[in-house]
């Protein structure tokens, strides 16, 4: 009976994915993609992956949504006006493409789909690592198995991944060229907007802290908390208080690197004491993991809000160029 829900969700997800690629307008695409994120979040819940669902909710509903919406303003309003020639060429080349190559392309994709479906249909029962994780869980220092895997059993992956976030920020810097990033913002004039931002800032902070703490025993943890805290930075930036740009340079750099750095230095310390990298004594594992998670959440939050601020700056620059021409 509950398969109806699953079937409906599956059809919805596939439909949304297809439509977000086929929709003729970019805004349609992007908003259908947001809806796709929601469908996925519901799918995670049906599959009993609440940790993943919180992450997806935070990322898809929050961070990615804001990034795409911010990117849309570059593309959406001007395409019909400015680039009519491009548009014409665009539609022309679409109709011009030959029938036969298209047919081969679609046939190839169809064949690929069929063997993909066969592969997942016939997949043998691997058994997974549930039992292994279950037996070792008491030694990990936390009660939530997902947190145990993330911060203890496979801490190396998590650590490298925090490196990836930092690299992502550096990469956005690299793509941005030599832009004047440290512009003081203009505080928003709208009283309600200010109140909303001021109200939601502590709410986001408290809920993030709650998720961070609860991550020890139940769904939640550093990433979810990091995204929620990053949303604070984004809100403040949007409200005209770009505090990341205004804080002293060293403090910003400290916030960005403290998660990655502390994680590694702690690992090196225990390695010097005779263990392996990221090997924690079981008695202290719980408290060490909590400290690492807190610092990691701070770094993730700082990195995400800085990424948003930089992308937003690219848009502002584009606006300025447009308004001068």
């Amino acid at each position, binding site marked *: 009976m509950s398969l109806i829900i699953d079937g409906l969700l599956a059809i919805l997800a596939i439909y949304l994915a297809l439509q977000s690629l086929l929709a003729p307008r970019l805004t349609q695409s992007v908003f259908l993609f947001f809806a796709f994120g929601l469908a996925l979040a519901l799918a995670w819940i049906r599959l009993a992956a609440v940790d993943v669902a919180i992450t997806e909710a935070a990322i898809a509903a929050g961070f990615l949504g804001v990034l795409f919406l911010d990117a849309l303003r570059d593309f959406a309003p001007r395409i019909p006006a400015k680039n009519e020639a491009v548009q014409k060429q665009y539609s022309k080349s679409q109709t011009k493409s030959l029938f036969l190559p298209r047919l081969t392309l679609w046939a190839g994709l169809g064949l690929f789909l069929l063997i993909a479906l066969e592969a997942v249909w016939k997949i043998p029962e691997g058994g997974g690592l549930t039992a292994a994780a279950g037996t070792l869980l008491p030694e990990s220092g936390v009660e939530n198995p997902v947190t145990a895997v993330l911060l203890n059993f496979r801490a190396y992956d998590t650590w490298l991944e925090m490196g990836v976030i930092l690299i992502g920020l550096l990469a956005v810097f690299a793509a941005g060229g030599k832009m004047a990033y440290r512009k003081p913002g203009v505080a928003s004039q*709208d009283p309600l907007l200010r109140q909303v931002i001021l109200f939601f800032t502590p709410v986001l902070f408290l809920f993030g802290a709650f998720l961070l703490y609860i991550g020890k025993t139940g769904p939640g943890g550093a990433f979810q908390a990091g995204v929620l805290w990053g949303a604070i930075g984004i809100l403040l930036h949007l409200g005209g208080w770009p505090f990341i740009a205004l804080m002293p340079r060293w403090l910003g750099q400290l916030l960005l690197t403290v998660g990655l750095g502390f994680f590694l230095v702690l690992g090196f310390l225990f390695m010097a004491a005779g263990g392996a990298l990221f090997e924690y004594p079981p008695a202290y594992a719980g408290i060490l993991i909590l400290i690492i998670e807190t610092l990691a959440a701070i770094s993730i939050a700082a990195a995400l809000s800085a990424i948003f601020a930089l992308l937003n700056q690219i848009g502002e620059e584009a606006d300025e160029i447009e308004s001068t021409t």
Partner: protein
Amino acid sequence: MTIVELITVIFLVVGCFFFLAGTLGVLRFPDLFSRLHALTKADNLGLGFIAAGMALHIASPWAALKILLIWLFTLLASSSTCYLIAHFQKEQDQLKNRKEGE
């Protein structure tokens, strides 16, 4: 079927009705402002009924508190949303009219 279950069912059905009303409003109303109206009023009412029904069903004070919090936040968020979007659209319309007037 106990009396609590009956109340839960009634609350959920009423909630679903309001959700349907809200969605129909979003689909059928002619302009953005009335659609906003339908969405932010009816859906929140629907959510409130469903929240109340589920709080009764789960019957744990901690969960009830969380559900209440969710509902209050949603009320706050959607009333601000309503205002902000309406204000935004008004400015956009004005801007458009001015541009067309030029």
